[in-house]
C-alpha cells in the first residue's frame, strides 16, 4: 500500500469498517458508548500509524497530543464557556499542532532510543503540568462540568451515546479519508522512504528533518482532535489521557492490528478495547494478563499483526484455489 506502483482505487474490503460501524449502531444500541471510545481510539491509532508505520518515527509520547487536545476542549468548555463542538475541535487541533511542531523541531534531530526517551519525557511533562495546575485542569480529580452544545444545534449528546457514536464515526471517516489520500500520494511514498533509509533520502535531496517535523505535526493534530472527541463524548477529562500508559496502550493496539497497513489502526483498537471491556468484567484483577497473552501471541506468531495473519491466510487460500483450478484442467 502507498507508493508509485500502487492502485489508489478504493477496494470493496475498505468499505467494511463503515458497514460494520453503521450495523453496530443499529444492532448494538447498549454498546454505543464503548463504540464511540473505539472509534476515537481508531482515529488516535491512525495518527500513530502515519508516523510510526509510514514515516518510521518511534514514539511513546503520542498521548501528549491526545491529552493536550482533550484538556484544551475540556478547559475551554468548563472554564471559559466555549461550548461549540467544532470550535472545541479546532482549538484542540491548533494546540496539538503547536505542541507537535515545537517539540518535534527539538526531538526529531535525534533517533531511535534517544528519540523514544524524549517522546516519553514530553508526555510525562505534560502529565505533570496537568496534575499540578489544579486551578485549570482539576488535577487528579479531573475536570468535570464540560458542556458541549448540540451538534449543528440539532443533535444533543444523549445518555445512550447515539449522537456521540455517529459524531465520532463521521469524524473518523473524515480522518480516514485524509490519511488514506495522504499515504497514496507522493507525500506518503516519501514517508516510506524516510522509514526505509534516511541516508538515501539525504542523497536524493530531501530535507529529511523538515519532512519529519511536518508529518509529526500532522499526526499530532489528528491525535489532538481524537483527544477532544473523547472529552466531548465523556463530558469529562482526567489525567489518564496523558503519560506513558495511554501511549503504551495505543502502541499495543497498533501492533495488534498491524503497523503500517492503515487498517491495522482499525482492527487493533476494536480487538483491544473489546477484549479489555470483556476481560475487565470477567476478571477485574487480571485483565491485563489477557491483553499481555494476546500481545505475546501476535508478536511471536504474527509479526504483521492480526491483518498480517489474515493476509497470509488469504494468500495461502488463493494459492490453493489456483492450484486446484490448475489440477482440475
Amino acid at each position, binding site marked *: 500500500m502507498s*507508493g*508509485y506502483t500502487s492502485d489508489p482505487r478504493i477496494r470493496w474490503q475498505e468499505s467494511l469498517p463503515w458497514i460494520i460501524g453503521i450495523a453496530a449502531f443499529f444492532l448494538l444500541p447498549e454498546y454505543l458508548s464503548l463504540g464511540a471510545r473505539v472509534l476515537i481510539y481508531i482515529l488516535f491509532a491512525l495518527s500513530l500509524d502515519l508516523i510510526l508505520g509510514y514515516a518510521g518515527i518511534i514514539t511513546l509520547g503520542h498521548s501528549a497530543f491526545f491529552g493536550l487536545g482533550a484538556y484544551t476542549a475540556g478547559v475551554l468548555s468548563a472554564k471559559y464557556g466555549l461550548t461549540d463542538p467544532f470550535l472545541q475541535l479546532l482549538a484542540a487541533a491548533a494546540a496539538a499542532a503547536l505542541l507537535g511542531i515545537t517539540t518535534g523541531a527539538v526531538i526529531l534531530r535525534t533517533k531511535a532510543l534517544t528519540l523514544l526517551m524524549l517522546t516519553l519525557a514530553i508526555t510525562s511533562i505534560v502529565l505533570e503540568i496537568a496534575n499540578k495546575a489544579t486551578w485549570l485542569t482539576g488535577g487528579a480529580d479531573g475536570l468535570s462540568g464540560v458542556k458541549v452544545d448540540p451538534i449543528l444545534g440539532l443533535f444533543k449528546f444523549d445518555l445512550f451515546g447515539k449522537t456521540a457514536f455517529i459524531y465520532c464515526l463521521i469524524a473518523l471517516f473524515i480522518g480516514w479519508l485524509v490519511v488514506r489520500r495522504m499515504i*497514496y500520494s507522493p507525500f*506518503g*511514498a516519501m514517508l516510506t522512504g524516510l522509514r*526505509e533509509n534516511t541516508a538515501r533520502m539525504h*542523497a*536524493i*535531496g530531501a530535507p529529511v528533518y523538515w*519532512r519529519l517535523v511536518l508529518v509529526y505535526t500532522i499526526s499530532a493534530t489528528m491525535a489532538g482532535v481524537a483527544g477532544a472527541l473523547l472529552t466531548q463524548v465523556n463530558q469529562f477529562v482526567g489525567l489518564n489521557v496523558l503519560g506513558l500508559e495511554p501511549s503504551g496502550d495505543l502502541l499495543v493496539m497498533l501492533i495488534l492490528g498491524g503497523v503500517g497497513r492503515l487498517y491495522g489502526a482499525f482492527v487493533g483498537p476494536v480487538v483491544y478495547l473489546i477484549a479489555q471491556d470483556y476481560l475487565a468484567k470477567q476478571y477485574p484483577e487480571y485483565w491485563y494478563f489477557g491483553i499481555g497473552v494476546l500481545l505475546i501471541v501476535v508478536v511471536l506468531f504474527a509479526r504483521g499483526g492480526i491483518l498480517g495473519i489474515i493476509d497470509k491466510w488469504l494468500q495461502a487460500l488463493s494459492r490453493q484455489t489456483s492450484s486446484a483450478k490448475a489440477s482440475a484442467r
Partner: protein
Amino acid sequence: MAASALETDKLCKSFGALTVADRIDFRLEPGARHALIGPNGAGKTTFVNMLTGAIAPSSGRILLGGEDITKVNQAARVRRGLGRTFQVTTLFRSLPVLDNVALGIAERDGVARRMWKAASKHSEITDEAMQLLATLALTSDARTPVKDLPYGRQRLVEIAIALGLKPKVLLLDEPAAGVPSQDSGRILEVLAGLPGDIAILIIEHDMDLVFRFAQRITVLVQGQVLVEGRPDEIAADRRVRDVYLGEATHA
C-alpha cells in the same frame, strides 16, 4: 578560465592528530570523466564525504559550478546538481525499483510534498522513471522490491536513482564494488553511455574499469594529491607504480 564543474581549494580534514585530507586542490571539468584512485586509507572516502556534505572539512573550500557550497548541507547540494552513488548500496530495500527512482525524481521536481493526488497518477513522475529504467534495461524489474534483485542489478538501481536527479556532477563511489565480474561489464556499458554533459568523478579499485573509463586520473596518497594526469601518464609514473599499482601492473 571557465568555471569548473566541481572544485576544491586547499581542502583539509583532520580527526584529532590524524590528518586524512591535506590541502587537496582538485578540479573537475564540465563533462569530465575523472577517476580518483589511491591505496586503502588514502582518504578517498573522506574526500568524497566532504564533497557530498556528509562531513564538514576542517578548512578549505568546495565550489560547485563556481559557487561556494562549503557550508551548504547535503540535501541542498543534491538540489544544486551534485548527485552520488554509494559504495555500499543504499536503497529503499522493501520498495519497488520504480519507487526507488520515482522518489528521487519527485524530490527534484518538487512533487514530493504533494498530499492529495495519488502518486501513481503523477504520470510525469512515473513515465520519466520508467523511461530511465528502460535505458538501464530494468523495465521488467520495475515492480520488484529492490531487496529481491541480484546485487549487480541493485548497483544499477543505485545509478538509476542518481541519474533521475539529473545531476550536473555525479560522484560514483565504487559502482562495481561487490559485483561479480561477469556483471561488471554491464555496469561499464552503462557508465560509458552516460550523458556527456554530466561531469563524472569515479572512485574505483577496479583498475581495468578506471583505465577504460577515465580521461583523467587523480592519485591520492595519505590525504594528499600525489599526481594528476592522463591515464597513460599515470600508468607510466614511477611514484604511482611504487605506492599503488605495484611493479607488475601495466596499462
